[in-house]
């Protein structure tokens, strides 16, 4: 793990020097827009009441709370994936992938370092967004702190886990945009950020369950909206952790070959 902290520090230095405020505003705007639109729809169209079907499918009648937690989780996922999955393709573009691969350091601690730094930045962004939601009058019930913490950890592992194979795909095809956006669209549709996956046809629902973000999101909502104790959220938490670690293991196996493909494609120097 010797590489994790230096990589964390390196990314801090770089981020402090060249933080893209446009990113911050951009992500924040998305989160705020989601919550804001839900708020408008809820009051203007629904007259302040969600349909009875929603309560049955979502397990809660608190539509605004449901959407707010979803938007916060979505922001967290997107930002973390962008940081972690794009770390290596960024190295490739800046010409440092070879010096990275040339060193004996392992990839997991490197990515953990990137992930930890991403976590600090992302948490700040999510907190700012939640503060906005509370400001416009979304009432978030007091969460169960233990379940919330466990869900946060599980969600972090899940998002980190899916980022690693994504990184391997990105460097081996030398492309980030299409890859990341495909994942984001799939997650937006399947994982239940804005609407309960119960509305989806069965095959799509199963597909959603294969993504650890789906179970992470259920656990997060249980912790916040339902004030659920750890024992109730435990099955989702375990599923999320198991899936996240499986993605991580597969990703780590893929990285070596992906790096070689990337270097070979890198052209003759």
């Amino acid at each position, binding site marked *: 793990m*010797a*590489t994790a902290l*230096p*990589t964390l520090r*390196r990314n801090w*230095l*770089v981020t402090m*020097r*060249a933080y893209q405020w446009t990113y911050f505003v951009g992500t924040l705007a998305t989160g705020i827009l989601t919550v804001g639109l839900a708020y408008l729809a809820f009051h203007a169209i629904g007259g302040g009441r969600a349909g009875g079907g929603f309560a049955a499918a979502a397990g809660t009648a608190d539509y605004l709370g449901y959407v707010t937690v979803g938007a916060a989780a979505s922001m967290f996922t997107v930002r973390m994936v962008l940081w972690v999955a794009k770390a290596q393709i960024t190295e490739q573009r*800046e*010409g*440092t992938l*070879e*010096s*990275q*691969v*040339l*060193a*004996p*350091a392992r990839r997991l601690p490197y990515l953990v370092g990137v992930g930890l730094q991403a976590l600090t930045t992302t948490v700040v962004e999510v907190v700012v967004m939640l503060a906005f939601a509370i400001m416009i009058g979304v009432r978030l019930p007091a969460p169960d702190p233990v379940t919330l913490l466990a869900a946060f950890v599980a969600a972090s592992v899940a998002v980190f886990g899916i980022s690693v194979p994504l990184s391997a795909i990105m460097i081996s095809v030398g492309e980030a945009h299409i890859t990341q956006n495909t994942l984001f669209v799939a997650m937006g549709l399947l994982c239940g950020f804005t609407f309960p996956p119960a509305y989806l046809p069965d095959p799509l629902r199963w597909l959603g369950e294969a993504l650890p973000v789906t179970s992470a999101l259920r656990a997060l909502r249980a912790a916040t909206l339902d004030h659920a104790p750890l024992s109730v959220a435990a099955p989702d938490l375990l599923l999320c952790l198991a899936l996240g670690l499986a993605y991580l293991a597969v990703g780590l196996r893929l990285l070596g070959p992906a790096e*070689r493909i990337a*270097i*070979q494609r890198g052209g*003759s*120097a």
Partner: protein
Amino acid sequence: MIVTHELRKSFPAQRKLFRPAGPATDAVDGLSLSIPPGAVTGLLGLNGAGKTTTIKVLATLLRPTSGSVTVDGLDVVDHAREIRRRINLIAGGERMVYARLTGRENLWYFGQLYDVPRAVLGTRIDELLELVGLTDAAGTLVERYSRGMRQRLSIARGLINAPAYLLLDEPTLGLDAPIARDLRAVVANLARDGVGVLLTSHYLAEVEQLCGHVYVVDHGRLVAEGSPTALTAGTRLPHTVELTLAEHAPAVSAAVAALGAEFEVGVDTEERPTFLLRSPEDLAGELATAVVRAGGAIVRLEVNPPTLEDAILAMAGTPTSVAAR
């Protein structure tokens, strides 16, 4: 010792949509080399000969298609991580450092990737910065460095793990003359201290000065090897002697022709007669004597022994370039 045996590396042809792929490129085609510790070994060849590809395979960046490479007995494929600790690579003209970190931060970060002990790292960074002349720029972001400064930082990066083997792929590309000279001194010192160095360079003077043994490759195959002097002598290329006279003297031409060597007559920029002689041996002494005896007054006499460059061009099968000199 780094040993390659029948090393082959081919790159698959670029696949094009709806069109059959062309043949694969055999960038390295059965090379057997050895790079001993404590010496600088040269790897020479024209553009596209396969030098960079060979170096990348030795550096564990590319895997051999067939054949074997071992570093101190460890196989590059099976023991890549262990080998990475012992080697490093410095390539010219590449962006192998982080633009958004300072020079010192770069070296610090790479030191961590190589697990350099904390007690050693601080002093090593200072020494390396001093060595490449970046002490004053250590706190400046690399994106503000000139190209030569980046290259110097890359050199320091390549030495951060105190490698047992150093692979140099045109390391002086883009460096100004004093720094390039310093680097040559550093490389010579490293070899004296026991580091095994592999050097490719298009500056052949650099190779002639540093390398005891040189491999010449063409199209991925070994075409010659030996010391720079042996290689030059082995190709039997002509020495050239150029002689300028103060004024035209009719007896001189006959005297020069009597030497029996191939020669050309011309005039220099000041309209003085010149003779250009080519022969396998150095005929300068005999030429001078013959000219003086024939009553000529010599203004200038220049002797050019064949260089390694001529030898390589000759071996790579481009005789026109040799004749052009």
